[in-house]
């Protein structure tokens, strides 16, 4: 990626440089979160399909396809964020998914559905109900993904190590 921020030892850290380092824990957090979120959905796809259907957003013909594919995109993006490979692309995917999740949540709340979020394991509406708190939480995660997308410079990531190795070679 272009626009790498110089962080030479001894040189004061610029705002962009600080943001680039702040993006590292955000990237790890989001990566772990998405891998964790995908785990149960991949293990029990039928439960996740029911969660998807419960939102009453998608037509029936798309419910299973989304339930099959979405968790693998989550786990793919999550692993890339954790490892620091193609970080901007992975952060873009996470941001796009968060926007879709927020839209579905908003629709469900506007319809007054008292249901499980389905974000992690299918826990049922009693233990994991959707609420405006869920929306705020998802907005926070969207903000973190935008932070990573805008400011991550590959610190402590495999892409940076590989590029460094190529440079030294």
């Amino acid at each position, binding site marked *: 990626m272009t626009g790498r921020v110089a962080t030479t030892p001894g040189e004061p850290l610029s705002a962009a440089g600080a943001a680039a380092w702040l993006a590292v824990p955000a990237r790890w957090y989001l990566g772990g979160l998405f891998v964790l979120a995908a785990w149960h959905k991949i293990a029990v796809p039928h439960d996740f399909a029911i969660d998807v259907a419960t939102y009453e957003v998608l037509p029936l013909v798309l419910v299973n*396809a989304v339930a099959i594919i979405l968790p*693998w*995109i989550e786990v793919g993006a999550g692993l890339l964020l954790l490892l620091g490979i193609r970080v901007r692309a992975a952060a873009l995917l996470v941001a796009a998914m968060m926007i879709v999740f927020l839209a579905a949540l908003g629709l469900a709340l506007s319809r007054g559905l*008292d249901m499980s979020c389905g974000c992690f394991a299918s826990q049922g509406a009693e233990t994991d109900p959707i609420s405006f708190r869920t929306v705020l939480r998802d907005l926070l995660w969207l903000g973190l993904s935008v932070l990573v997308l805008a400011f991550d410079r590959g610190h402590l990531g495999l892409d940076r190590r590989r590029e460094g190795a190529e440079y030294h070679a």
Partner: protein
Amino acid sequence: MSAPLSFARAAPGPRSPIRKAVLRTLLEAAAIAGGAALLGLAVNAVRPSGLPLVAPAPYETLVPCPEPGGPVAALEPSDPALGGSRLFLVDARDEDAFRNGHARGAVNVPYDWLDPLPEAALGDLARRIAASGATRVVVYGDGGRPDSGEHLGREISGRGIRNVAFVRGGAPALLPGGAS
């Protein structure tokens, strides 16, 4: 004459770095999503618990309404709606009262304030109702205060079943003499 020529040479110059970076990010994101989707489809195809790509029938989604249950309509015992053909009738009284007489076709689901229905039993009832093809659920209870029929109706409605009603006055008003 030379200025337009030099401009013409400069026009197809390199794209801006930002545009290139955005395009590259978009392409990489599409490739990651596509690869992950193909992997997911492949794994789903070979695993025993894989889903069909298109669900053969709608999922029975039970969406509970907020406590203390969902909305129920009140029907008078003489309401013509009680003569409809696509009713799912539920008798909320205890088993003894049900054995002594009940409305034809009614299903007995005893409802006790002190011993509420387990989640599994309520879920099973909601699934039976969803599978029955009925367009209306009518519950009748003991007609007391509180009326077990009304409250079982709220519980059923709270499981996402729409169009639930209870009979005002319960079995004593609906079943003269207590028999169907």
